[in-house]
């Protein structure tokens, strides 16, 4: 194991190419994810940032192959995970990936646990599915996982309704990490929690991630969380990643007009609050995306070409920082 981690850490653990996911409904086709590109190395944490409806959850469900079908369909692209394309895997093969190699923490801890099953058994379930252990060993390991997330063994037999929101999310984290997955997808794991609990849960996730050396996709719209725990950031708009890069590069030198808009709309205590400039307008309806670049109706610096052509290529800003915007494609390298 140790000798190939060095080699493995150079190649991407996850490499999503041109992923498109549509929800085909009676009212029309919702183009939730459009030609999305994303890559992640082993041990890395990437923040997936974007406003509501940008397609973050859909992307995550796509990686898990859990997009509800109908109406959802992966209509194109590849999801390469450790060298294998997940979109081509059979359902049975995917079941061996889910919970074992890729885990997901969902948005709302209040509803993601089964109300009629003791928490310990809900953790043991995933262990029994993927490890060759007896039921008793699985239960013992489940209690160990609960201890790791700070829940005492006496409470292991209790039911979800006996726990607070923060504790439930700890249980969900314990389920997700029980089989030591290579990739953990966290879909806004703390938005439903109050601020102090948020900080505790994030701290816990940071420590466990370090302990297990898990790669992580952290879905959030909170740039503070990104700054706190991520190595990389991907900015998502209307179903695709418009800018991706090393956290420091991207925070210091945002390029895409949408990214710049996001940073400008953050309140900054050091500056005068009048300088707050939210992006004008709203995210386009994914059922009816504008022609050209989907951001052009809200963009202050859009050129005539932006209304006709959508950018398809990424432009390197620096070695670890790329942007998808026509403003940069003629003068490669930006500036």
């Amino acid at each position, binding site marked *: 194991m140790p000798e190939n981690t060095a080699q493995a850490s150079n190649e991407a653990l996850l490499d999503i190419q041109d992923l498109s996911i549509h929800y085909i409904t009676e009212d029309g086709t919702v183009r939730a994810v459009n030609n999305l590109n994303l890559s992640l190395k082993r041990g890395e944490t990437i923040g997936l940032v974007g406003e509501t409806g940008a397609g973050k959850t859909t992307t995550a469900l796509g990686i*898990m192959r*859990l997009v509800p079908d109908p109406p959802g369909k992966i209509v194109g692209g590849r999801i390469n995970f450790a060298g294998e394309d997940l979109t081509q895997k059979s359902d049975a093969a*995917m*079941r*061996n*990936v*889910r*919970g*074992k190699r890729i*885990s*997901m923490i*969902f948005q*709302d801890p209040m*509803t*993601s*646990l*089964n*109300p*009629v*099953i*003791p928490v310990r058994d809900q953790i043991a*379930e*995933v262990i029994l*599915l*993927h490890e060759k252990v007896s039921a008793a060993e699985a239960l013992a390991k489940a209690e160990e996982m609960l201890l790791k997330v700070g829940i005492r063994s006496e409470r292991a037999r209790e*039911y979800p*309704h*006996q726990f607070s929101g923060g504790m439930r999310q700890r249980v*969900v984290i314990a*389920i997700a990490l029980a089989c030591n997955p290579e990739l953990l997808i966290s879909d806004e794991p703390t938005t439903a929690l109050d601020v102090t609990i948020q900080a505790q849960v994030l701290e816990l996730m940071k420590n466990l991630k370090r302990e297990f050396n898990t790669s992580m996709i952290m879905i959030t719209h909170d740039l503070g969380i990104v700054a706190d725990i991520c190595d990389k950031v991907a900015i998502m708009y209307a179903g695709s990643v418009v800018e991706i890069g090393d956290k420091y590069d991207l925070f210091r030198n945002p390029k895409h007009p949408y990214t710049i808009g996001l940073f400008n709309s953050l309140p900054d205590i050091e500056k005068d609050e009048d300088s707050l400039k939210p992006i004008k307008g709203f995210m386009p309806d994914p059922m009816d995306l504008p022609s050209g670049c989907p951001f052009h109706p809200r963009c202050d610096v859009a050129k005539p070409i932006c209304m006709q052509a959508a950018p398809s290529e990424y432009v390197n800003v620096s070695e670890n920082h790329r942007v998808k915007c026509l403003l940069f494609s003629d003068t490669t390298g930006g500036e």
Partner: protein
Amino acid sequence: MHKFILKRLGMMLPVLVGVMFVIFTLTYITPGDPVMMILGDQAAQEDIVNLRAELGLDQPFLVQFGMFVANTMQFNFGTSFTTGRPVLEEIGFRFPTTMQLAAMSVVISVLIGIPLGILSAVKQYTIFDNGATIIGLLGVSIPNFWLGMMLIILFSVNLGWFPTTGFETPMHWVLPSFTIGISSAAIIMRMTRSSMLEVIRQDYIRTARAKGQKESKIIVSHALKNALIPVITVVGLQFGLLLGGAILTETIYAIPGLGRFMVESIQRRDYPIIQGGVLLLALVFSFVNLLVDILYAFVDPRIRSQYK
């Protein structure tokens, strides 16, 4: 939990007194005179007055009711006006038949309704689901007596598979149980289906999928237990309806049960039998409701913790 059960048993008392009041009032105001029924049209006036006094029917309403309650509390239900045998005895040997019929119908309706409901939900909008919906609608809307007669014509008269009347052997049990059970099966199926559809949309089902669990296992060990909670209520309520259904069905199939006996007793104005019979049925129904609440707690830990 024990405390809860004791409390619920205690609460059954006022319910039963209420039932007694209603049933007593109803028999009191029903036209028709039991004394005339017993003695016939040609009876002498003196005999009539004597029997009235003997049966306590000459007392004012409240006195009669008070006596009825007092007697009932001592498990003294009186004697049948027509046969002169104790009510408990008359009811006692017919009651097991009716209970058996109702219980078998519940089992049939649960065994048909729940699996079909689950399948319908899992295969929503497929031919199977649509077919089950149509059959279910028919099952609910067809009246019991008509269904009973059709089943007799088809399976007894034409095919000769089952006997037409009576209740002696298990072969006799099949048609009446189905007659009563089918409409309940349809209701339980619809309830299971909608409850199941609700549950499989829940986040925790997605969590189970994210663990890599198999779909069939998700249905059985994650969805079903949650989906059954509302179904249990419906089954409990159905049991009351099934007891009612037994009355008609026993008449159609000439089954010597409590239901048919009650119908006959009403025609004969045999007040003690009617009162005792209704009281017994109410008692059974209350017990079934208690059982439903206990089952609830068994299935749902959130309710269990409320009971403490």
